[in-house]
């Protein structure tokens, strides 16, 4: 029974984290057709910036509660700056190029950003564990669980809904949806596709940065933390169907529970649980669970 509770909670918690790190990737792909490897670097930057900002904050002896507000501000500002620099500086000059080539571009960016992070922050570890301990733990079915982890679940849900709302309800969001549906027609209809791209890329980046910011208090912020994230995020969005936001949610749930199940029931399979899920899903549904039907008309 306790094991069941644990699996439910762990799966949910891991799924929420996966969703946060993956949804930006799927959004950027859906709109811009760029499979952004640099996403992992954005995540790492988020973690580092959070660690530095909060480090300064705590060293001033300020009250712990407002640290969370600072985390939000940091995520927004860092995401916006990094996203816009990369979009304006590099990607803007390359729109319309081959999809595979863009993967290469973002890989090159990833390498550059990884070392940039290293040059700025060095290779030593950074810690900001205070937020993680701030709310303490509660016992659920006899299992102590960190409140912070449950808050990440809430955050993932809220941000997912907010993103969905933005796409469905706001003007910019609807323009984005139109660009996803048909880039040429949208441009012909007077939608500023470049602006849509810039906005999308910034939002996608912010999501990656948020992922890093909320993770920083749980981990040692060290070089290389972005590498594994990329491949996990890829797996999640492929399971769900590339470019689909509900797909990213479902993919995260699949991958999250696959991992929780394997950790509790068959730890020896943890290493490839997520890949196994991906292989099985693709074998059954070659385009992922939530893929848009794109039958070519002849």
């Amino acid at each position: 029974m306790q094991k069941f509770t644990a699996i439910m909670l762990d799966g949910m918690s891991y799924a929420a984290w996966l969703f946060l790190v993956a949804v930006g990737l799927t959004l950027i792909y859906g709109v811009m057709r760029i499979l952004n490897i640099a996403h992992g670097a954005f995540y790492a930057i988020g973690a580092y910036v959070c660690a530095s900002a909060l480090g300064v904050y705590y060293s001033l002896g300020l009250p712990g509660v407002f640290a969370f507000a600072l985390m939000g501000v940091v995520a927004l500002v860092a995401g916006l700056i990094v996203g816009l620099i990369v979009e304006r500086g590099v990607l803007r000059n390359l729109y319309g190029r081959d999809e595979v080539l863009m993967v290469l571009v973002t890989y090159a960016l990833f390498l550059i950003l990884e070392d940039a992070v290293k040059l700025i922050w060095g290779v030593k570890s950074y810690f900001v564990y205070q937020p993680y301990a701030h709310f303490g733990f509660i016992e659920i079915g006899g299992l102590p669980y960190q409140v912070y982890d449950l808050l990440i679940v809430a955050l993932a849900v809220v941000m997912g809904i907010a993103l969905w709302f933005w796409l469905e309800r706001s003007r910019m969001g609807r323009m984005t949806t139109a660009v996803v549906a048909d880039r040429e027609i949208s441009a012909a209809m007077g939608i500023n596709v470049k602006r849509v791209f810039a906005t999308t890329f910034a939002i996608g980046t912010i999501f990656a940065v948020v992922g890093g910011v909320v993770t920083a208090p749980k981990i040692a912020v060290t070089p290389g933390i972005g590498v594994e994230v990329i491949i996990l995020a890829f797996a999640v969005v492929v399971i769900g169907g590339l470019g689909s936001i509900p797909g990213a949610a479902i993919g995260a749930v699949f991958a999250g529970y696959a991992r929780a199940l394997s950790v509790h029931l068959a730890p020896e399979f943890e290493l490839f649980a997520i890949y196994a899920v991906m292989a099985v899903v693709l074998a059954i549904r070659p385009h992922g669970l939530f893929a848009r039907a794109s039958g070519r008309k002849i």
Partner: protein
Amino acid sequence: MMKTDFRREPLHIAILAGLLILGFFLPDWMRFLLQTALAGGLVALGVALQMRAGLVNFGQGLYYVLGGYAVGMLAAKAGITDVFLLLIAAIAIATVAGVVLGLLLSRYREIFYAMLSLAVSMILYGLLVKAAWLGSTDGFNIPAVTYLGWTPDRTVRPDVYYITTAVLTVLACLATARYLTSGAGMLCEAVAENEIRLEYLGASSRKVAFIAIVVAAALSGLGGGLFAMSTGHVDPLMTNWTTSGGFVFVALLAGRGSTIAPVIGFFLLELVRTYALDFAPNAWQMILGSVMLAVILLLPNGLWSLTEWRRKA
């Protein structure tokens, strides 16, 4: 225009052979770098072949590791050290894997092909990491190989290994060029461009893709075998996605103008990498990334387009 000018292939390969002979005059460390780059280059060539059919394989390391482990296990565990048997085994096992996986994967296209092949290669990675008897992530070492009973001693071994690698690379390029001029090879571009048209002409795009996957697997198996022989060590990292990603990047950077492009491209990239490491051990990734970005921006069709530019001028 077709991406490969087939009439020039024999010339290209002859140039490659010439360059490899010049390799004898390189300092030892660089010739060794060239030797391992040739092994990797064959894998990149395999990736490039599939790319002609629009298939981007992010798990090509699977065949590379199979070739490497085939050589390693036969030599280290079964005591078979004859280089010819070992390399034939490397090619054979990779080919068999290519056939089996090709049956599944030839249905897939675009990113889904990329991700499914990645998933499969990572599952193999996971299995190898679990295999304590194969040294897990540490992998294991491979004894020196023999040539029909002759064991080259320490002083000539580097030369012999280099010659083996160079000769087999050239032969592999020739075989690949021959494949590319066959119907199956030519139709790859048709698969990438318009499968509907291809099917309506009575050709099977799945079959064309399947053949490309199998040929690429064989090349990669040979590459893995040669790498294992050269470095005397194999480990599961050979099938990690980072390794496979490297092959994709070389295939893309090099361009598809010739079978020798990925092979030479791999060497150039390794050269940049090692010099970057030497100059700036703390920032070599940044240099590597910048070089890649510069190539993409300045040479949209890959390094090979340099040669075409010269031809036009």
